[in-house]
């Protein structure tokens, strides 16, 4: 699928993705990478410049009506539910999505309970906090889900405890047979929740696979993290460092497991030389892969 603006800017440059029913598929990438553009084409809000989107026998580009029936979409922006009580917003959206009234109410209430929102069930939207509204948006999107569920940054503003409950429900959507597209810039959360993922940068698909296959290059390696003293540049790095990235005063490096001792010794030298304040050694995560591929951390720009 390709999407250009004014024939020049490639928002999506020949991205091909295949998702199986039951799969939770992560779309990761820095801000402006083209993730949201991609999913808006799936739901039919934008039209691809070229390429096709198929779900079973249906061509979603040709038939945007069927695209909206097959896909449920949680956009990044908050839902317009100021005047709705929580359970009304959920129920009416379920009806709009084509669910039978009783079944929609039953599943809606079950989801409200599962995400621990029961105390606000009868509260008007304008009195809900941002995180709670985000969760209501998730329930509205999935109370009667399509075959493809698109969630654009579903955990934004959500507290850590309900975040876990939310991930559980996202996994269950997969078990129910839906293909879930998860747009996020939170790599660490995605690593635990997705079956497969794609990393998109500047409109291009730069990596695709399971979290562990993407980490395979870093197998047998460790992450060495150095907290630089403010005002210090990146010190001369020893040869044992495979790659590195700096965010603020945080210098992240990937080294071989076998070089752990040498790495620690070097880090201690850096502290004695008052270049660094602190160091840590740990397992590599998807974040390290992400940094290597995009040149950004998932938390912000490097």
């Amino acid at each position, binding site marked *: 699928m390709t999407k250009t603006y004014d024939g020049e800017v490639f928002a999506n440059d020949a991205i091909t993705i295949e998702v199986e*029913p039951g799969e939770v598929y992560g779309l990761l990438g820095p801000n402006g990478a083209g993730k949201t553009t991609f999913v*808006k084409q799936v*739901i*039919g*809000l*934008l*039209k691809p410049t070229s390429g096709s989107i198929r*779900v*079973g*026998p*249906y061509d979603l580009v040709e*038939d*945007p*009506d*069927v695209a*909206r*029936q*097959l*896909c*449920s*979409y*949680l*956009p*990044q*922006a*908050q*839902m*317009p539910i*100021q*005047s*709705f009580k929580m359970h*009304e917003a959920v129920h*009416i*959206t379920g*009806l*709009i*999505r*084509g*669910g039978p009234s009783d*079944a929609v109410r039953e*599943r809606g209430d*079950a*989801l409200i309970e*599962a995400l621990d929102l029961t105390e606000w069930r009868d509260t008007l939207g304008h009195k809900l906090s941002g995180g709670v509204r985000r969760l209501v*948006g998730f329930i509205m999107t*999935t109370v*009667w*889900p*399509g*075959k493809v569920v698109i969630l654009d940054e579903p955990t934004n503003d959500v507290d850590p405890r309900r975040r876990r409950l939310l991930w559980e*429900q996202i996994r*269950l*959507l997969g*078990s*129910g*047979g*839906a293909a879930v597209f998860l747009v996020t810039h939170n790599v660490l959360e995605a690593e635990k929740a997705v079956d497969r993922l794609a990393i998109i940068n500047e409109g291009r698909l730069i990596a695709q696979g399971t979290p562990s296959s993407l980490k395979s290059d870093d197998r047998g390696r460790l992450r060495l993290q150095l907290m630089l003293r403010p005002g210090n540049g990146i010190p001369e790095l020893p040869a044992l460092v495979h790659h590195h990235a700096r965010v603020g005063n945080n210098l992240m490096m990937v080294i071989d497991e076998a070089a752990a001792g040498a790495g620690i010794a070097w880090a201690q030298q850096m502290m004695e030389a008052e270049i660094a304040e602190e160091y840590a050694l740990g397992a590599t995560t998807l974040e390290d892969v992400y940094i290597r591929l995009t040149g950004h951390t998932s938390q912000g720009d490097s």
Partner: protein
Amino acid sequence: MIAAPASTLPGKRAGIAHWLRSYTAMLRWQLTDMRLLLPLTVMVQLLSGVGLVLGFGLLIDDVSERVALFLSTGAVVVTLVVVGVIMGPQLIAQQKSAGSYDFMWSLPVPRSSASAAWVTLNVFIAVPAMFGALFAAIWRYGVSFEPSLMIVPAVGLTLVTGTLLGYALAHGIPRPDITQLISQLLIFVIFGFAPISYPIENLPGWLAEVNRYLPFYPMANAVRDSLTEGLVTDVGRSYVVLAVWATLSIGIVGIVLRRRK
């Protein structure tokens, strides 16, 4: 544990039952969405209809029956048009600014059912205002109206055309601030240069001719004819022009809503 509903790939939903279901659900959404604002909006529209009727009486010392009928039926049409052309675009512009537009537009309903629900909402807001203006005229000027059944097509065509033109404007122009500017400009045109509250003969010849083909004069002529006896002529032609505009506005909305960037 909550199992998601069973999931074999469904057939495409279509047909009249799907349309009606979607229409009902969308209308329910829009009424609930407006619940805090609806009573206030209805009240404001009603007051502006009444205000228009009473205001003219302050401007003109001696209001004859003919003038009173002209002014009050004009106020009815202005009220009907303002709801669709001004209020609609403002609400949609607000959705666009808030970012909730994408969600509304991703819902699995036929575009036409969402538009029909929108027109219905406008009817709820405009019709009380229409009655307000009529009763104010009866009370203030002692005029009597002679409503005929033609009030249904006259008001219906006026509301459909006005609402859908405003709707197309709001959806067709990407930037909400430009939409707002254009709807303000329309108000200026409607109040100043469309013969809604005065006879078309009062306009210079060329402007009168232009107005015969624009929707506002035919709206006023048809509504006036349905409420009074012997006040206006050339009504058949007004219905034809109005029907063309109604069809056109449905067509424009259809094109605007199907277009994807």
